[in-house]
């Protein structure tokens, strides 16, 4: 495949992949640096003639911008939603990693009775579509067996994320546990190490690269989740950025600079995470499929 025709075709294909992947993001950045007037200008300005941070200023500082297109932002609302998303991602991911690492080790290595059935049950729930659960979840969280309602709390959301994402994390780590050499752990056990100590000292460090990849995938999943928090939150007490951002979509007209600024700010954390860990993430996604 070294003829000039093929090389040109390949170059075009590579460029197309870059434009397709980055294009919408760049359009978002360009729009967020425009004013309403520049967005509406004819002929279209793909890049603003007078770039401005006004949209970010309005979004974060909370200027009412009704004149420009019907969006009203309140000071601190957007920042609060970013904060909620960060807390939800960090706390959920920590619990998911602990639960999933233990479960993956147990079903992958310990060969305890019914281990295969437990794995089948966990993986089976991955096929259960979230929407079958989410409608009833509302009622379950509103009237839990003990304590007050968990609707509109970050704690309630964390519980739901743990339950819905732990099976996937367990499966991803299980495929890794099965491929890991068993000799280091066996040696430790023969030396008189207990199973628990061998797990903490030998197996978990062995799994660390897989755990890092799964941590990234879980953080991205929680950060991007929309339907669950849309139904289970009401106020800024727990509302994440994905739900808040839809408030900037106007019913008839949309203030594009503010919407784009919100989109750009919401995509920076996941984009940085994906870029930083991209080799591990791609390896894990491709390897366990």
């Amino acid at each position, binding site marked *: 495949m070294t003829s000039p025709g093929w090389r040109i075709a390949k170059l075009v294909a590579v460029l197309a992949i870059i434009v397709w992947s980055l294009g*919408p993001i760049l359009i978002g950045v360009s729009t967020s640096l425009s004013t309403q007037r520049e967005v509406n200008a004819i002929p279209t300005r793909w890049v603003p003639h007078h770039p401005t941070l006004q949209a970010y200023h309005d979004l974060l500082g909370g200027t009412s911008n009704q004149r420009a297109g019907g969006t009203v932002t309140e000071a601190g609302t957007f920042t609060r939603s970013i904060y909620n998303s960060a807390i939800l991602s960090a706390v959920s991911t920590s619990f998911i990693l602990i*639960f999933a690492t233990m479960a993956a080790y147990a079903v992958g290595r310990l060969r305890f009775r019914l281990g295969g059935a437990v794995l089948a049950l966990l993986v089976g729930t991955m096929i259960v579509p979230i929407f079958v659960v989410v409608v009833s979840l509302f*009622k379950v969280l509103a009237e839990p067996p003990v304590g007050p309602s968990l609707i509109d709390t970050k704690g309630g959301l964390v519980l739901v994320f743990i339950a819905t994402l732990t099976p996937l994390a*367990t499966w991803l780590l299980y495929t890794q546990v099965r491929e890991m050499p068993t000799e280091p752990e066996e040696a430790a056990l023969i030396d008189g190490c207990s199973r628990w100590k061998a797990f903490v000292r030998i197996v978990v460090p062995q799994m660390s690269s897989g755990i890092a990849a799964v941590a990234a995938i879980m953080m991205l999943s929680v950060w991007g989740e929309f339907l669950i928090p849309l139904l289970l939150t009401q106020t800024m007490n727990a509302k994440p950025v994905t739900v808040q951002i839809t408030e900037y979509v106007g019913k008839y007209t949309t203030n594009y600079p503010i919407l784009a600024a919100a989109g750009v700010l919401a995509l920076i954390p996941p984009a940085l995470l994906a870029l930083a860990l991209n080799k591990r993430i791609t390896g894990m996604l491709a390897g366990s499929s």
Partner: protein
Amino acid sequence: MPKPWNRRGGDRTARETQILGWLFVIPSLIAVAALVLYPMAHGWWQSMNSGGFLFGEKPGYVGLRNYRDVINDPVSREAMAHTLWYVLLAVSLELVLGILVAVTLHRVFRGRGFVLAVLILPWALPSVVSGVLWKRVFDPDNGLLNSLLMQLHVINQPHVWLAAGRGPIVYITLVHVWGVLPLVSLIFLAGLQSIPDEVYSASAVDGAGPWRQFRHITLPLLRPSMAIALTVGTLLAISIFDEIYVLNGTALNTRSILIQVYNTTFAQADFAHGTALAFLLAAITAVLGALYAIALRRSTV
């Protein structure tokens, strides 16, 4: 096959292994049981009972009546037809483009690492944000697609992209595919990497050109990857929600089954019919999943 240390350590280690095994899976099992399995059972019960106060009837067991209702409901039916379109369009685009991307990025070239890093960005972003980024492109009045096509003299006046006909479903699918294509491409890339180079060099000796190699070696050997991509693509497209919600709200012309479930359950406060429709979709999903699993087994044997 018992591991050697289980024998050597005697009963104490064996029992320790059993207990530790259960202790290690109990947290996951409790979480899944309380917040997936129990709500599922609750929802199933809900879908078999009457809608209650809104319809002026007493809550009570009605069997499969809610299921019959949603199957006969014209709006739900239309949502099912839309969902079929979303799935067909998304999956075929993802398979074709995914194979093209994978073939392009398979061989090592300068800058490949950069392209791979850029490639996964759309997958990493929340689908709500994808919708936000694309929204200006499809804006009916002064959207970027309109002005591009007008500047190229393809159209003479702005086209209302999200307003009528089948068009809107196509554009929303495109946004959905933007987010899913990276994952599908990686699946195919992994598939390509598992094909040994010797197969290609042997066929090159036999005088096969790139196109014939692609037809007769690459495509057949990618069949397991295709089955996986088909499964992943279908599962993600059949439950499409976020992109529709951001780009066109709950408008009738783009309503998917899941948007209809949302509308029935939360806008009309009709939990019974909402859950019935959700379970119907779950049943369809499960059947498709089983079919794909069979296809996957066939293609790998």
